[in-house]
């Protein structure tokens, strides 16, 4: 695994450079109305999608961590998740439900998204048993916040020349994204500074409620009048196939990059916990003095 990481890092760097070349290259058409500034979309949108995916993983890991607290709730949670997946997938093809879907949203896309819930739940449970669920949760939240920060920075930079303002106060897409960022920042702050033995449980509960904001952010442009542009994919909008290709290539490149960053952060968290445990064992054995217990003196998680 140690050999694999540098190889993947080099491949990802090449892929990112290629995606950047596509995003800025003359082969990709320029938007007739916005000019070249529209190319910010190639970093803004993939960053948003990656952040949503990471927050979704955080949500699944947090639910599973809470469910694993008791054997009975663990079994019940598995059945509930399975039922959500099956019922949701079937319901998305029922005509009465289809009529309620926003214009342009495909039932197959809804079914796939709903089926991803049990799929992720069982995959995460299989590959991240026990405490590793919590490690995955903190990893995905932290890297998700980084990508969400990029969304909040690149959005206003695009808005200034196109809208004439940096920020549209009261716009639900913008406000809900900011709230989402604040929720996950508070999640990380809680984990960083709380000394309670229940910190992991509290953080998992906060993450479950925080994840409820993700659908609000995503669907806000369908259900509310916003200044934010309408979706170009799956929402009835249209995009030049060459632009779509570049957008998807950039997303894939950012997914690879995000995966490697998560991998590093995951390893860091495991080592951090090993060190904390070693310090605790040492202090119990009456050896060297225990590490300072004040949270400000603790090494970052």
């Amino acid at each position: 695994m140690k050999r694999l990481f540098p190889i993947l890092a080099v491949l990802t760097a090449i892929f990112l450079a290629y995606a950047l070349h596509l995003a800025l290259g003359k082969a990709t058409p320029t938007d007739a109305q916005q000019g070249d500034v529209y190319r910010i979309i190639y970093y803004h949108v993939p960053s948003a999608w990656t952040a949503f995916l990471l927050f979704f993983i955080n949500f699944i890991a947090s639910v599973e961590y809470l469910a694993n607290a008791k054997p009975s709730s663990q079994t019940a949670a598995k059945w509930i998740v399975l039922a959500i997946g099956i019922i949701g997938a079937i319901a998305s093809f029922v005509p009465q439900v289809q009529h309620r879907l926003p214009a342009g949203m495909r039932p197959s896309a809804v079914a796939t998204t709903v089926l991803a819930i049990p799929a992720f739940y069982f995959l995460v449970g299989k590959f991240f048993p026990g405490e590793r669920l919590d490690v995955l949760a903190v990893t995905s939240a932290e890297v998700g916040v980084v990508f969400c920060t990029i969304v909040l920075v690149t959005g206003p930079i695009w808005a200034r020349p196109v809208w004439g303002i940096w920020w549209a106060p009261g716009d639900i897409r913008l406000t809900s994204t900011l709230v989402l960022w604040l929720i996950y920042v508070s999640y990380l702050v809680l984990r960083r500074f709380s000394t309670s033995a229940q910190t992991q449980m509290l953080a998992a509960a906060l993450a479950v409620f925080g994840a409820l904001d993700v659908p609000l952010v995503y669907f806000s442009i369908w259900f509310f009048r916003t200044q934010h542009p309408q979706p170009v994919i799956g929402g009835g909008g249209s995009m030049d196939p060459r632009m779509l290709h570049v957008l998807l290539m950039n997303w894939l490149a950012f997914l690879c990059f995000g995966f490697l960053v998560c991998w590093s952060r995951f390893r860091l968290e495991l080592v951090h916990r090993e060190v904390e445990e070693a310090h605790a064992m040492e202090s119990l054995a009456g050896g060297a003095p225990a590490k300072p217990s004040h949270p400000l003196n603790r090494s970052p998680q």
Partner: protein
Amino acid sequence: MNALKFLFAAYIATWAIHAFYLGTLVRRFSRLRQQLSELGKRK
């Protein structure tokens, strides 16, 4: 030209944020490595 300024600002900001975060990860790794070596010496 003015629009290009915003385009490059967005791209530079993106990589600056990523670089800053990667920097914090490297710093945390080196701090942990130092703590591990201190623990090893005590044993």
